């Protein structure tokens, strides 16, 4: 529990400045949310209407405790909350298609439930959704306002930009277009989405209206202040509910066929024998049980086969890969199995998610969200060192910044997978030997154990950070 101390030592979080209802801060490493007086009535309504309890029970909103200590409140705070912690923050440009779709549907489900209790979401930011226990949940307790009869949905535009436009682009154009979310911090502009989407999407009522006509209306009525004022009071609650239900139906119909993959069926085509596969798993499992990490970062996790060695032991595991198909398969498998300790994420290690937003402080880079207790880099290093020409010393440096322990697989040049990579290019990788590998990594790590995987030329290393 926090000790009694001056609130002046607390640090306000860089992502928490837009909403005047309150903000997030940390104090002695503990995360708090301040509720300002101007939000009091809305906060009380959330708690007293039963909406909070219902959403928390349904897993759609993170829970919180009200902090009683006097220091916390100060003069300006109505309440100070201590929210349930999210094990690892993720961003929409790191989500698989189905992950993104589930986040959109969770937002709409929350809005529908809120309307039933006389409240409404005043924002619909994709960044307010995080994956907790394997399911999308709202993390911003201050997103609700008391519903006023007649009001259209104030967050409608944001919902379309943050959810509908990226999902439609992923479904109808190219799944990689989710990366536009990296560029546009407040969601993909609808006129841009409308231009990129195939003309056939105009034949679908939901996409025609919520994206194409919506984009046109935004342009035409950009300065129509009086008209907007006139429109207030023009939308009944039933009409608003119909709108939300139509958005739900539109999102549900969006689909992406995760076929045609680079790595999707990697484990079927790889040259691992059954013996090697089992031996590799046994070695990793033994090391995981010895180190007992709290958070594991699996880099180049493919469909999460090896991530599950940790997550099945109830160790929270971020299972990242750069292939959208692999991440999609990983997420679908996680959802089907109701797995709670796994977070599949789309991360390209050659260009990991940067710090973004105002002053580059709103969204953390991939590395800033660690460090993890343990990092996995299995069957990965040859892709980075050979396909992408990253020197071994730089790999060691970056991996060391991500976590305390490292399980890394060294794949030698004689391995058939490496031979395949070298087939189409000149071998300029004189440095790529086991000796150079050990030398590069020993600058940052102490070698704890080395095991050759049976029936392969590959070696597993357990390394401990020197820091």
């Amino acid at each position, binding site marked *: 529990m926090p000790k009694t101390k001056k609130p002046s030592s607390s640090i306000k979080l860089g992502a928490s400045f*837009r*909403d*005047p*209802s309150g903000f997030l801060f940390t104090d002695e490493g503990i995360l708090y949310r301040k509720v300002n007086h*101007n*939000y009091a009535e*809305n906060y009380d309504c959330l708690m007293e209407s039963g909406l909070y309890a219902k959403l928390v*029970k*349904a*897993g759609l909103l993170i829970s919180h405790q009200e902090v009683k200590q006097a220091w916390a409140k100060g003069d300006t705070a109505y309440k100070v909350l201590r929210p349930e912690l999210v094990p690892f923050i993720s961003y929409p440009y790191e989500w698989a298609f189905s992950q993104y779709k589930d986040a959109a549907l969770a937002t709409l*489900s929350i809005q*529908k*439930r809120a309307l039933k209790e006389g409240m409404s979401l*005043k*924002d619909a930011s994709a960044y307010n959704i995080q994956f907790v226990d394997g399911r999308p949940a709202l993390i911003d307790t201050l997103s609700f*306002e008391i519903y*006023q*009869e*007649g*009001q*259209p*949905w*104030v*967050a*409608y*535009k*944001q919902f*379309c930009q943050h959810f509908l436009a990226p999902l439609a682009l992923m479904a109808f154009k190219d799944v990689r277009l989710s990366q536009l979310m990296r560029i546009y911090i407040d969601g993909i502009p609808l006129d841009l989405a409308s231009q990129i989407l195939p003309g056939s999407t105009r034949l679908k009522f939901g996409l025609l*209206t*919520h994206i194409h*006509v*919506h984009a*046109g*209306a*935004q*342009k*035409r*009525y*950009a*300065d*129509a*202040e009086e*008209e*907007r*004022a*006139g*429109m*207030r*009071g*023009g*939308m009944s609650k*039933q*009409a*608003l509910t*119909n*709108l939300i*239900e*139509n958005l*739900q139906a539109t999102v549900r119909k969006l689909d992406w066929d995760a076929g045609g993959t680079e790595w999707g069926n990697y484990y079927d085509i790889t040259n691992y024998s059954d013996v090697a596969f089992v031996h590799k798993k046994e070695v990793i499992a033994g090391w995981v049980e010895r180190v007992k990490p709290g958070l594991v970062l699996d880099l180049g996790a493919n469909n999460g086969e090896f991530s599950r060695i940790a997550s099945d032991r109830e160790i929270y595991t971020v299972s990242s890969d750069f292939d959208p198909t692999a991440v999609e398969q990983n997420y679908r498998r996680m959802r089907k199995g109701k797995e709670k300790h796994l977070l599949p994420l789309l991360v390209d290690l050659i260009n990991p998610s940067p710090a973004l937003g105002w002053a580059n402080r709103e969204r953390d880079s991939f590395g800033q969200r660690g460090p993890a207790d343990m990092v996995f880099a299995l069957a990965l290093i040859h892709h980075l060192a050979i396909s992408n020409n990253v020197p071994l010393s730089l790999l060691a440096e970056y991996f060391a910044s991500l976590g305390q322990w490292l399980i890394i697989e060294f794949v030698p040049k004689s391995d058939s997978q490496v031979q395949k990579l070298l087939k189409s290019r000149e071998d300029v990788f004189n440095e790529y030997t086991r000796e150079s590998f050990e030398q590069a990594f020993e600058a940052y790590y102490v070698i704890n154990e080395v095991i050759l995987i049976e029936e392969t030329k590959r070696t597993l290393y357990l390394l401990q950070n020197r820091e």
Partner: protein
Amino acid sequence: MFFLSNALLSGLGNELAYLDPGSGSFLIQLLIAALLGVGVALRASWSKIKGLFGIKSETDEDAEDEEAIE
């Protein structure tokens, strides 16, 4: 234009609504809601007509929302 009423005009300014909802985005909601309203009405009459001939309407697929989680 679309069931516009100025009755609630005053007092609706909400200092907590920190997002700019956008004029076009407000207008389009009214348009879509109006179209959906017509659709709902049509569907209701259609199922009544079908009811006269003893045809059952399909179940409401949106019952999902109060979900299994409860």
